[in-house]
């Protein structure tokens, strides 16, 4: 109540004070943003800069983003002196297969859990939720045991098949399918379309936003996947990019040297995800975006 009597009494001086404070807050806000913007992005700038430097230059001026002299020697050695092209090929193959598999299988299961009435559905959904809570890292040895028993160890199948479905993806798809009105399917079913056909040609096309989200998450996840490739293959011919990169850093080249080459290889491994991120940002940060307009 005090405020009501306060308001009209606000003198120009007081308004001035308030404006000054707003200005100060704003300045402080931008300063914070810029500082943390640098903290979060400058390492990548350093990475790009140093990937293009000579070794002595990288050692002498690690902070400088400008190579002097600029050289592509690091990249030449990546392609000529390492198995990079092979790792890249393996990564592409694995990522494409895993992404296709996940999008298809997760959609099927998500649709069934959202819409089909079948016995055991409730229990199954509870199981999917439970599975999401299993920490990935404790599965390293277990996964190796199963792959070994199934004869999939050290094969492309071992790299791909275990990743073909994921519980989180099923969950995303289920949530989305539940938001589509039932009437659409009913019309198709009354017209005589089979369950699969209704799913495939009627519902799935409507689920495009969810499919894009799932595709991007699967791509990003399988492109970056490291521990799984560590326990599913041993043969250097089957290394994916993260595995090859880890090997390059901790194994064959040892520590402390060849930074332009290592940074360059890491950079090349980051570029695809970076492009996807920049292009499809809203699918990564969708919720945050949704709300910000309101404010």
């Amino acid at each position, binding site marked *: 109540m005090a405020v009501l009597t306060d308001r009209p009494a606000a003198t120009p001086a007081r308004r001035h004070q308030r404006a000054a404070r707003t200005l100060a807050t704003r300045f402080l806000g931008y300063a914070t943003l810029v500082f943390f913007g640098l903290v979060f992005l400058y390492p990548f700038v350093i990475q790009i800069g140093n990937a293009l430097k000579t070794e002595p230059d990288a050692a002498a001026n690690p902070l400088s983003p400008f190579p002097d002299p600029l050289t592509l020697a690091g990249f030449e050695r990546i392609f000529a002196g390492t198995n990079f092209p092979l790792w890249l090929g393996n990564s592409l193959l694995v990522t494409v297969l895993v992404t296709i598999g996940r999008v298809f299988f997760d959609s099927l299961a998500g649709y069934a859990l959202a819409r089909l009435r079948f016995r055991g559905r409730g229990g199954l959904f509870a199981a999917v939720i439970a599975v999401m809570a299993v920490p990935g890292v404790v599965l390293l040895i277990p996964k190796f045991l199963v792959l070994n028993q199934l004869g999939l160890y050290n094969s492309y199948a071992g790299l791909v098949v275990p990743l073909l479905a994921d519980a989180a993806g099923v969950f995303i798809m289920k949530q989305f399918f539940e938001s589509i009105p039932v009437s659409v399917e009913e019309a198709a079913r009354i017209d005589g379309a089979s369950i699969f056909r209704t799913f495939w040609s009627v519902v799935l096309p409507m689920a495009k936003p969810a499919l894009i989200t799932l595709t991007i998450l699967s791509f990003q996840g399988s492109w970056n996947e490291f521990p799984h490739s560590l326990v599913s293959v041993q043969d250097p011919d089957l290394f994916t990019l993260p595995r090859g990169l880890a090997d390059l850093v901790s194994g064959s080249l040892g520590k402390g040297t060849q930074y332009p080459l290592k940074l360059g290889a890491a950079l090349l491994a980051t570029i695809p995800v970076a492009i996807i991120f920049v292009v499809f940002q809203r699918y990564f*940060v969708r919720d945050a975006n949704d709300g910000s307009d309101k404010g």
Partner: protein
Amino acid sequence: MATETLTAVATAGGAGTRRGRGGIRSNENLAGWLFVAPVIVILGLFLLLPILMALWVSLTDWNGQGSPFTGDVPFVGAHNYTQLFTEDGLARRDFMTSIRNNIYYVAIVVPTQTVLALGLALVVNNRMLKGKSFFRSAFYFPSVTSSVAISVVFLFLFANSGAVNALLGFVGIDGPEWFADSRGVLHLLFGVVGVDSPPAALADGGPFGLTWWDWLAGPSVAMISIITLVVWTTSGTFMLMFLAGLQNVPVTLDEASTLDGASRWQRFRYVTLPMIRPTTFLVLTLGMIGSWQVFDQVYVMSQGDPAKTTLTPAYLSYRTAFRDFDYGSGAAISFVLFLIIIVFTLIQRRALAERDTDRPRRGWWRRRVPERS
């Protein structure tokens, strides 16, 4: 296998048409199970079955040769577990060292990333600032990139002649050799006040085979670089979660408290903070669950060195199995770790279910991914 299931599903669709005449719902039972079959098979084979197999292996002395399920493999019962907790020896020493390292790691990483994420979210949520979407993306970008690739970059940043030491040099500090320095930071702090060697009371004796002095080492200098890296990569994800939480706080509430004369700090402390409590709890427990799983960074940056001060249970279980070929012990370590993480998961689910029935199911299962509604 993938193609087989594919055809199976396709045939099921066809069959559905023929049999569908009887009633629209009559064949949903079959179709439902066929639709979920691929996922069940894959998750069953590579998630549930492995856990059971590993449970068996953790009770044996399997060395990786042949199958662990034949009669030749020596069954040792709970020995792999007792070795970790009660028997004096290298196995317990290493395990307890890794537990100690991870406790310090969690104790620093979780509060730091939570505070940083909340701070960033508050700034990015500020209505008066422009260009927020750029910064939001910038803060989140490290979270979507490969942990291995980022680790390589941080190896360079923390190298002896790296960027971090160059920055420290500007302010006159002679930076350490990060990845070779096994000194614990708490020991270093004790050193500042003149306690360089363990007082007699701490020098010998202590729980689980480590002396009190060892338990009180704090994270090593090498571990600090890994901690920095992890805080840097995860804060963006948690910032997005906080942002989603902040946007659920009604603007009117904030305005009302301003009219009541609440200061900025009071508004934050008594309005905002209580309103985003579920999110805070989510971030804290997700952070803890994630922090107990630290693996990639350790593998790439330090492999547990120097002097085992960056050894974590996750990495130790991997190393014990795949490098020392002691699969029984390795599996036992991962089960103990499993239990630790399950406890945190259960705490989180219980608390979320009690505190707020509206949002419990939404985000707890995601780690590097923002919430979605």
